[in-house]
């Protein structure tokens, strides 16, 4: 089982990557991705192809796979390690009319115990001498949550839940000078339905247990609304290089507030190489109904012990390199790039404890933390 399937749209990436007034370039990308950390390894391929026609339309398709092998701390302490496979495909279409681009997209994601469909509509419009671009997006997701059978094979026929999600997004980007672009984005997301994980448990004090605690199923509210606003800027330096910065504030009805800040530097090495470095900082407060250790069974109406709802910070450093090679073979290829990106993430939890350490009084175990890396290897061609 995987929680939080925010099918926020690969379609958004596909359809929304266009600058207004110009359709996105015809290109194909083949990516191998790998995430490894905290006992979880996920890897797989992703293929993205985009092609325009009649100078007014552009279509795109994306195929993406995750192969998951999980022995995370949750799994190790309350369940059994598992392997899972997820397949996702997306189709998108853009149409340009004057200075407006209309976008439509659809994404489907399937795994043995979770299915999700998302439809997306967006538009972007150039204004004020093309110095300003306004973009709007709306998406709707319909998810089906299933649960693996206790026997370990197939799904539980007595368990099936639904989740509906709607997203509203508005963004503005503004050219300020010959070297500077700034942007602002607001996104509201509402969820309704089964929002927790059918496998995850919360911990409560139980003096009758040998460890001093026991577990019971977590219970989340059936609604959630979140608002996020992000500000960004990109600046072309006096020599050929660029710096960028982004900040986001997030708040939701579950009581989570978070801040995200990211800076990056892009440096070309003429004539073939481009290098990127970045640093990202993230911090959040816990959800109102989160606790590492509840005082008793059924202590509250809503209970969670999901570390993604805990108080924590993460720090990420990233590095990327891109090498451009000339086209001509096959003849339709205009140019291509070979790319590598590596991100290293350090998670530090402030109120989520490591239950692998035993023999201590409940609630005095050391705080949990882990490191993870994300590796991306991909080739791109323009045609």
């Amino acid at each position, binding site marked *: 089982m995987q*929680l939080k399937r925010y099918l926020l749209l690969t379609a958004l990436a596909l359809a929304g990557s266009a600058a207004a007034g110009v359709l996105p370039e015809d290109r194909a*990308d083949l990516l191998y991705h790998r995430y490894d950390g905290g006992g979880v390894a996920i890897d797989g391929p992703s293929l993205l192809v985009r092609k325009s026609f009649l100078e007014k339309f552009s279509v795109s398709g994306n195929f993406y796979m995750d192969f998951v092998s999980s022995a995370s701390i949750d799994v190790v302490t309350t369940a059994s390690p598992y392997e899972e496979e997820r397949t996702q495909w997306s189709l998108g279409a853009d149409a340009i009319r004057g*200075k407006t681009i209309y976008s439509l997209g659809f994404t489907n994601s399937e795994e043995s115990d979770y299915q999700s469909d998302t439809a997306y509509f967006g538009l972007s419009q150039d204004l004020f001498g093309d110095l300003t671009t306004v973009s709007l997006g709306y998406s709707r997701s319909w998810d089906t949550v299933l649960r693996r059978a206790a026997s370990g094979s197939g799904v539980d026929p007595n368990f099936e839940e639904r989740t509906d999600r709607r997203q*509203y997004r508005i963004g503005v980007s503004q050219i300020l000078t*010959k070297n500077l672009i700034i942007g602002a984005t607001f996104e509201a997301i509402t969820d309704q339905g089964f929002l927790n994980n059918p*496998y995850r448990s919360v911990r409560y004090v139980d003096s009758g247990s040998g460890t001093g605690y026991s577990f019971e199923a977590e219970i989340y509210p059936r609604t959630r609304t979140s608002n*996020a606003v992000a500000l960004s800027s990109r600046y072309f330096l006096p020599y050929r290089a660029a710096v960028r910065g982004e900040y986001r504030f*997030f708040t939701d009805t579950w009581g*989570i507030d978070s801040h995200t800040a990211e800076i990056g530097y892009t440096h070309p090495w003429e004539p073939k190489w481009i290098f990127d470095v970045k640093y990202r900082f993230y911090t959040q407060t816990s959800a109102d109904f989160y606790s590492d250790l509840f005082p008793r069974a059924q202590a509250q109406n809503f209970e969670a012990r999901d570390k993604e709802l805990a108080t924590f910070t993460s720090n990420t450093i990233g590095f990327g390199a891109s090498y451009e090679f000339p086209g001509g073979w096959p003849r339709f290829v205009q140019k291509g790039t070979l790319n590598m990106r590596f991100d290293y993430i350090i998670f530090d939890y402030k109120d989520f404890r490591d239950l692998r350490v035993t023999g201590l009084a409940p609630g005095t175990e050391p705080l949990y933390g882990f490191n993870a890396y994300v590796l991306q290897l991909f080739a791109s061609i323009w045609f």
Partner: protein
Amino acid sequence: MRRLALGFLLIATLLLGACGNLEPWVKPYERDRLADPIMAADRNPVASSHLHHVFESREGARGAMGSAGGGCGCN
């Protein structure tokens, strides 16, 4: 929720209706640096989409910072 949707539509209408003939202070021929690939908002959508997905799967926050695909393997 309905109020949110109405507000969203109102802002959209106002912004899209503001298509005046404002004189651009950065002329089209002065935008060569902004058009350089190193200034692109998202130079590699397939890679950034995956990375956003990694973060959204492991963090409580979501939205407004690029896009993300579904699924996570975050248990």
